[in-house]
């Protein structure tokens, strides 16, 4: 392919970036997977809205909705989506120390201590929800 025009130097070589640039290296693939996790988050939001809609339609409609959720392919889909959402959550929490240079007593707080409260709150909220839903 002939080199595109460059001011004063028309023959400088400019490599074209392939559409599949993200397949060549693991860190790039990991990045694309991380970006795709947003779809799983959006899926769960949509699912929750459908669930609320089914609930508003009465016990029979909600029962049918729950039956659909128990189908094997639905369980498999939700398992994969859950993995993606977990990955999404962890990468977001790990971003916190990058975005916030927290200082305490003149010293920068270690990254681990900035990320840790996110995990603690996440576990506390999950435990609270589990208690609410499973207490019978």
């Amino acid at each position, binding site marked *: 392919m002939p080199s595109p025009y460059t001011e004063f130097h028309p023959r400088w*070589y400019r490599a074209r970036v392939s559409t599949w*640039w993200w397949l060549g290296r693991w860190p790039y693939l990991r990045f694309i997977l991380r970006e795709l996790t947003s779809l799983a988050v959006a899926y769960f939001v949509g699912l929750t809205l459908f669930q609320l809609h089914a609930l508003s339609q009465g016990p029979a409609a909600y029962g049918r909705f729950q039956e659909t959720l128990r189908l094997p392919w639905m369980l498999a889909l939700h398992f994969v989506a859950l993995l993606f959402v977990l990955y999404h959550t962890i990468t977001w929490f790990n971003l916190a120390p990058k975005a916030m240079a927290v200082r305490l007593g003149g010293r920068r707080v270690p990254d681990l201590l900035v990320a840790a409260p996110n995990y603690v709150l996440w576990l506390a909220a999950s435990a609270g929800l589990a208690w609410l839903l499973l207490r019978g």
Partner: protein
Amino acid sequence: MANTIVLEIARYSPERDIEPRFERFEVPCREDWVILDALNHIKDRKDGSLTYRWSCRMGICGSCGMMVDGEPKLTCATFLHTYARREKPVRIEPLRYFPVIRDLVIDVADFMRKLKRARPWLIRRDEKPLAEGEYLQTPQQLDDYRQFSMCINCMLCYAACPVVGLDAQFIGPAALALAQRYNKDSRDQGAEQRTDELSDHDGIWGCTFVGECTRVCPKHVDPAGAIQQYKLTAAADWFKSFLMPWGARE
């Protein structure tokens, strides 16, 4: 350790080639040699036409950055023997995403233009009289920006960042990290001047946080961290100007 090692070097002559080709050279694999020593050996003993940049050979000038087996590296800081235990040759290419002038030499003009847009220098609204002495800083104030000031403009972070390759307008990791270096400097008063240029799609919001710039940085500058911190500041400033339009900006 093997006595010799084969380097596969990208060659490109704008007068002769349509695109780069690869040429193999067998060089001694000495324990104290870095990739740059091997390139110098080739230029001195095998092919004087091999073209590349280098200067200090001690990781300070930032001019000998190249792709070594697909990874952006300072060739003066990458030992040859780390590649000795394998069959295939070590591939040396010019830094990715930059126009190639010849062989391993890239055009840095675009980078220099982007660097200037970040205004990486101290900006003062009011200079105090010389008689009042220097602008003093506490160790903590120095610590706020020191990490970002270690940048040597080697451009390895540009070669690692896919956004640089996909979006030619993106200012890029080093320039943004240097902008943050001056924004964090207690002597600087130019943060507001930099905001319009950097808090833009071509600036911080172009960064998708791949994080490779930080991984390849030979000086541990952490450009990705600098950009994320800048995003947080810019978002907070935007909220302030939204909630208090009469007085958020100085």
